């Protein structure tokens, strides 16, 4: 049966006015851009909505972060919604983990085109375009959907559609609403790291879901990564976050424009709207490379990417691997800054965006040719033994250093969670190499 033709934009994890993470010192201008990036993105989304003449906008979770208490987010939302209201575009908001329904302040008079769906709501909502149902929207909850499925979709479609067409049925899985309370209280003061878990679908979803509730479009909202699963029938889709906020979210981001034509084809398309692009560029720094060459390399890497007109800022992280004098010189911030400044001036006219660069150096093993001294060997062994013998070595370290008091213990153990254990170990070993190799040299000399 063909669908009622419709078109909508699905966006998730807008995180309006949430701050980018993992950013070092940046210029004033860039900072402003970074701070505003989500808002600008939202504006872009609104523009896109208007431009594509969609029927409705679907926001699935984490539209803003409650704990930010952001005013600007609120204002931006109202502005945007009002704009949509003027064009009769409906907005459906499904609260997520960080923007629970209570945070939306329902007393406030949102524009009339805005509809809030509670995660506990399981009734099927009809989305209409002038008297005609173009789609149905339903919150699916892994534990509830079976019981609350009073009508098979086909029946519904027969009921509501006069033509021989059926409305697109959209299912929505809210981000873990059950654990919402716990997580909220837990990291109240912390910045909100979004779960990057790979477990996007609830367990045993695939098995049951396809048979029991055939939805044409399953809106996912967990995590920040964009992904699509083909289901039989329909697709499950997560548009990812509209605007990445750290280097982990450097992949394609944007919103999804879903078009359903009368032939019953469901087409989803990524609309890029990001104002800040997170770029991780990897470079191999060979021994003999000169600085100028390096700059050229970097420039090439940069210029290979085309800036979109909505992009305002590129956050570039150079992951440079290598060794040698030039590499070592890059360790100093001053040199890094000089390098990036040079790069920016060189590529200014060709890249009409702001560029903020950071360097992430990864020294390649240069000592492999030489026999490591006994000490280094021993040291490495010790560390390795420590790592393998203790369960969580970093926490072990915390308890090891007894001078820490309660607060510090807490603080540091909190930071342990965010830390790359391997990285720490590598650095430590690297340090050991640096320190102890000198003495071995001396030993050789003496």
């Amino acid at each position, binding site marked *: 049966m063909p669908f009622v033709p419709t078109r909508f934009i699905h966006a998730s994890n807008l995180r309006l006015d949430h701050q980018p993470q993992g950013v070092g010192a940046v210029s004033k201008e860039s900072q402003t851009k970074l701070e505003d990036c989500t808002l600008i993105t939202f504006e872009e989304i609104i523009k896109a909505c208007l431009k594509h003449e969609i029927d409705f906008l679907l926001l699935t979770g984490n539209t803003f972060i409650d704990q930010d*208490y952001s005013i600007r987010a609120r204002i931006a939302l109202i502005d945007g919604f009002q704009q949509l209201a003027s064009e009769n575009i409906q907005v459906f908001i499904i609260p997520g983990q960080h923007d629970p329904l209570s945070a939306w302040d329902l007393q406030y008079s949102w524009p009339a085109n805005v509809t809030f769906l509670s995660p506990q709501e399981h009734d099927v909502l009809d989305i209409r375009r002038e008297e005609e149902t173009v789609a149905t929207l339903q919150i699916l909850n892994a534990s509830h959907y079976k019981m609350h499925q009073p009508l098979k979709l086909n029946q519904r479609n027969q009921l509501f559609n006069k033509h021989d067409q059926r409305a697109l049925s959209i299912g929505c899985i809210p981000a873990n609403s059950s654990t919402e309370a716990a997580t909220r209280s837990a990291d109240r003061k912390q910045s909100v790291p979004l779960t990057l878990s790979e477990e996007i679908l609830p367990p045993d979803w695939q098995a049951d879901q396809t048979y029991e509730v055939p939805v044409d479009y399953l809106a996912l909202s967990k995590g920040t990564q964009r992904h699509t699963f083909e289901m039989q029938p329909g697709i499950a889709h997560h548009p990812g976050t509209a605007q990445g906020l750290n280097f982990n979210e450097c992949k394609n981001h944007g919103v999804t424009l879903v078009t359903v034509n009368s032939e019953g084809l469901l087409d989803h398309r990524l609309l890029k709207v990001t104002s800040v692009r997170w770029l991780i560029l990897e470079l191999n720094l060979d021994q003999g490379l000169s600085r100028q060459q390096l700059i050229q390399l970097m420039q090439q890497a940069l210029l290979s990417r085309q800036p979109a007109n909505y992009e305002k800022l590129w956050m570039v992280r150079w992951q440079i691997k290598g060794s040698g004098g030039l590499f070592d010189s890059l360790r100093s911030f001053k040199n890094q800054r000089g390098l990036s400044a040079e790069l920016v001036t060189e590529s200014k006219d060709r890249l009409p965006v702001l560029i903020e660069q950071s360097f992430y150096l990864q020294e390649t093993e240069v000592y492999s040719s030489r026999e490591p001294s006994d000490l280094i060997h021993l040291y490495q062994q010790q560390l390795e033994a420590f790592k393998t013998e203790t369960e969580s070595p970093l926490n072990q370290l915390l308890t090891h250093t007894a001078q820490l008091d309660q607060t510090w213990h807490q*603080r*540091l153990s909190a*930071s342990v969670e965010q830390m790359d254990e391997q990285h720490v170990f590598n*650095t430590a070993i690297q340090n050991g190499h640096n320190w102890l190799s000198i003495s071995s040299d001396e030993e050789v000399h003496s």
Partner: protein
Amino acid sequence: MKITRIHVDQFGKWNDLNLAPLNTGINVFYGPNETGKSTLMRMIRGILYGFQPEEMREHSRVSNSVPWSALLDIQHKGQAYEIRRQTNSKGRGNFSFQAESRGTSGQTLLTSLHAGVNESVYENVFAIGLNELQELGTLHGDQVAQHIYGLSLGPEGQAILDVSDQLTQSRQKLLSSDLKTGKLVDLYQQLDDVNLKLGDLEQQAQRFFKLSNELQQSQADSDSLKKRKAGLQYQIRGHRFLDRAWRPWQEVQTLHQKLKRLPAISSFPENGVALLNEYDQNLKQVEGKLGELKTEIQRLGKEIERYELDNDLLNFASNIQSLAEQKDWIADLEQQYQQGESQVQDAEQALNQQLGQDQTFNEIRHIKTTPDNNQRLITAARAYRLAYGKRKNAHQRYKRVSRKYQQTLALLQEQSSHLLHGHSIDEELQRARERMKHLERLSQLRFRESEVLIRQEAVKEQLLRLQDHARIPSWAQKMLFSFALAGMLLIVAGIWRGVSDATLIGLIFCLAGVFYGGTAWALKKHYEINTDDQTEEMQDEIWALDVHLRETRQEIDRLLEDEFFSLKLVTEGHSISSHKHQEKLPTLNFNDENILRTELLHELALKIGELEQLKVAQDRSQKTRLLLVKLRNRSQEIQRVFSGKRHEWCECLKQLGLTETLKIDDAFQMWHQVSNVNLHANQLDQEKRRIKPLGEIVNMYYSRVRDLGQRMNRNQHNFDKPFDVITEWARELDTLSVRQEERTRLRKEEQKLRQESDALQLNRQELEHQRSSLLIQGGAANREEFIQRATSLEERIQVENLLQASQTELEKVSRSEQEIAIVEEDLLNFNPDENTEHLEMLNLELEDIERDLVSVAENTGRLKQDFQNAKTDRSAAHLRFEREQILEQIKQASEKWFTSELSTVGLSQLRSEYERTCQPETLTIASEYLRQLTNGKYRNIWTPLGEQFPKIDDQQGHTLTVNELSSGTREQLFLAIRLAMVERFRNRGVELPMILDDVLVNFDQERTIAAIETLNAIAEKGQQILFFTCHLHLTRLFEDHGGSPVWLPDTNSQTSSSPALFHQADNLEQKSDAEIFTDSSIIGSDEPAPQVPAYGLEWSSPIQSLGTLDDAQIRGLNQAGIQTIDDLLNRDADQIARKLQQDHLSAGLIFEWQSQARLASSIRGITSSQAALLVSCGITETNEVATIALEELWALVESCQQSSEDHSDLVIEQHQIQQWIHWAQQARRHRSDRSDTALQPEIKPSKNSQAGREYRRDQSHVSTDNQSPTIPPFYLNRSMPVEEAPSIGSKTAHRLEKIGIFTIDDFLQCNPEFVSGKLTVRHINEQTIRQWKTQTKLACCIPGLRGHDAQILAACGFSEPEIIAHTSPHELFEKVKAFVKTNKGQRILRNGKKPDFKEITDWINWSQKARALRAA
């Protein structure tokens, strides 16, 4: 190098000593204390490295300056040498040698011998005594330490050390150990700040949300206000419009109404009204006339009707006439009849009144009330009443008398029953009188009885008196009898005399006797006869009286018998009938009887009186009875008369027919009634008869009238009053005739009027026709309508005009307000006042709303502004961004921190691993030795990287520091290290012999054996060891382990003994030793009993031989020109000190040395070290030793010894002291003394002692540590009781002891917090205890430091000896000076001397010599 022979030409106390041959292995030398073992050790070192300066000095002081010279035969590198050193004037002696082969210089040989081992290393490693073994410091000399540790810190170790330093630094930079500084701290601080600000943001956001809500609200408000405003304005307009439109509309409406009301008139005649009026007027006139006529006719008709006639009455006119005529007569009759009837009624009434209730007229009717009967009744009544009165009187009198009699009789009866007891009066009277007599008689008798008794008594008394008087007293009788007897004797005598010599005299006597006797007899007789007579008389009298009395009594008894009971019973009210109790007559005493009797008498008298009265009364009553009988008779008679009379009366009544009654009044009343009734009855009958005919006539008349009435059908009349009816009828008849005439006249009149009216009727009809035609013309039914129509027509025209005008006006108004439709209803309900009111209110409201609108607009504006501000406020985002940045930094920093922590962990493990595995060889070897020495208890010696102290692992794997070891183990450790070092040296080709001076003394049995075995093992490895000991058991142990000890000869006796012989006579020597031991048990134990002990020092001995001086001091003294003891003693201590100008050489110290030297050199048997001990005990002069009591000195020495127990060579026995005292008394004198004392024998010692005191202000101390005389003794040891500690008094010490702190050691180890808590004394807090501890520690560690000095130092902030040691004297002095001036300082010092610069300098010096606290 191996020593094969030791030969001493002259060295110290040794001369010409030859010890040979020596083993290449271990050699044990036994010699008691003072034998010169240490000297030998020094000598060997001296040979190898040159003599020490003090040895040189000592030598130079020796008077017989034989150069010191000693030689050793050695094997070195396969060559045999004989090396020798001799003292020379300068330097450290000459070295010379003889070798088998020539070709080497002395110097090269020495260098070869030394093999790089310099002197200090030699001293600290090869030649060691107990001293060296006990001090860790001896291992810390640069060179020695280098040997032990120097190589431990290889480049790798160094690298590790460097890295760890670096790590510590970087960790410190990131996060300092106190968690207060560091990059992480700063970052977290920043984070906290930002978080704080962000916390504010929450509120800000809420404020914003509130604000936006408010804004919305205010906008809504404003909208609603505007809406309301518009509404109001519309309303106002409406009202205004209404106001304007209403008036014209109203008019239009009213006009419309009017118009509606007005009928529509089409045609109306001209002047119709006037015509109509005319017609109407005419019509009115005609009708008026017609009406008048009609009324006239009617009136006439009525009048005629009124005069209409009643015919019935006329029919009976005659009857009525007759009746009217009879009327007056009948009326008179009737009146009469009525009167008669009323009289009858009265009479009847009276009769009824007379009749009683029960009586009927008929009953009374038969009683004849005749006057006879009346008379008869009256007489009968009179007679009856008379009789009745008589009877009543008699009866009454009788009754009265009878009653009186009864009373009297009753009284009499009572009296008699009271008095008579059933007897007659006379009888009773008689008995009473008789008894009276009896009683009188009794009283007489009683009286008599008493009289007789009195008399009898009197006689008896007289008799008695008489008898008493009559008798001669017994004494007279006796006398008289004796006279008589004497007379008899005299008679006998007289007879005998008379027979023989003087018969005459006897006779005389006899006669005299007879005479006296006779006289006595006569006298007696005379008196006695007289009285007897009288007595007899009296006796008779008594008898007479007695008889009399008896008689009287008998009579009394009889009387009493008769009377008593009766009397008694009479009084008690009993009858005297029972006489049974006669026998039980109680004997009454006199008084009772008297009283009873008189009572009885009185009673009897009374009774008699009463009885007499009773008799009289009986007589009288008898008389009364007689009278009574008489009276009764008479009254009976009267009664009979009365009965007759009564009968008569009754008869009379019966006859009269009255009811029988005894009452006369009743009878008469009845009689009277009856007569009255009869009278009235008669009257009644008469009256009745009289009125009867009258009644009949009247009734007849009445009936006639009634008949007439009935006939006339006039029932309306009251026929009961026939006269009225008749009168009526008559009057009616009269009026009827008058009316008939009148009617006829009126009929005529009527006829005329009727004609007149008919004419008028015609006229009127014409007029009406005319009018109606007019009305029809006007379209009206009647006149009103017509007129109305006329007016309305007029009005209508007018209204139509007005309506026209109003409508135009209304149109105009409505045109002005186009939008507002006119609602009729509104207009209908319109009220102009209300409307204006409304309008006003609306206007006011409008104003309000406008004002509100302005304020809301303002508010909105403001809110909008705020909103805008909040909207553009990006601080929140900014802050969050900042926080993120900080977090990033923190992440990086903590990553670094973790890295460095991790590196630290790795490194520390690396380090410990390294430390354990890569120890210097020395320590590895030493570990092995230690294991052997401690029988495997301690295994491993290692030293931490970069440090210079050894650590020891024990069996259990614990790691201990040196301080944690017991002193014995420590010695073993140090020995092991030295052995290891020696082994290493040996491995490097150094073959110096090892000299051990009694190093095993503190080892226990097992470890000693282990040590000996170890030493043997080392010796087997090719190390030559010279082992000196003063302990026999050690020697024996060595022997047991295969050694052959060398018995060192006594220095003092060795001159005579040949070493070889000495050596050979080894066994023999031992035996003799044993003998000596037994011998010496009296005077000494160890020493081989010297007969005359040598002097410890000679005047010429170099000052080195004092033994207690160190090199520097010796050098100093040498510089001052003091080479020998002699020199030392020649000078004044102060002088020397001044000359020396050295800080560490104080006058006190020098004085001490002088004293030591003096003692050692003046008293035999005292060695210099013993002298030092004595000095430390406070004994500085020889004569002090000589004069002191043994016990006292022993006590002193013993206490000193306790503190220096380790120094076995200083063991002083009591017998030694005894010797000392002995020798002190024969002490030699130094020449300075000699010379001085010659001049001023007293001054010097006093001076010296003064100087001594100056140093030793406090003489009480006994505890010293004479390691070196330059270092003053320690005033505080850890084993001392806690009371000795500075600042701690006995009280506090007591308190401390209570909580288990007994010694200084305990105190130093205590936990101040705990102690202060335990003490619960307010002034002792934790701080105080810490302070005390510091003081105690100072006093413990720094020699020569007193309690108060320690207090001062601690108060000045010096808590560690090291700090003091490194402080410049000036600085310290300034501090102390400043402190001493304070109150606290004064308190500490009390009256003591302020510490001067010198003293403070001493403190610093001593601090440098401070011992470790643990080792102390």
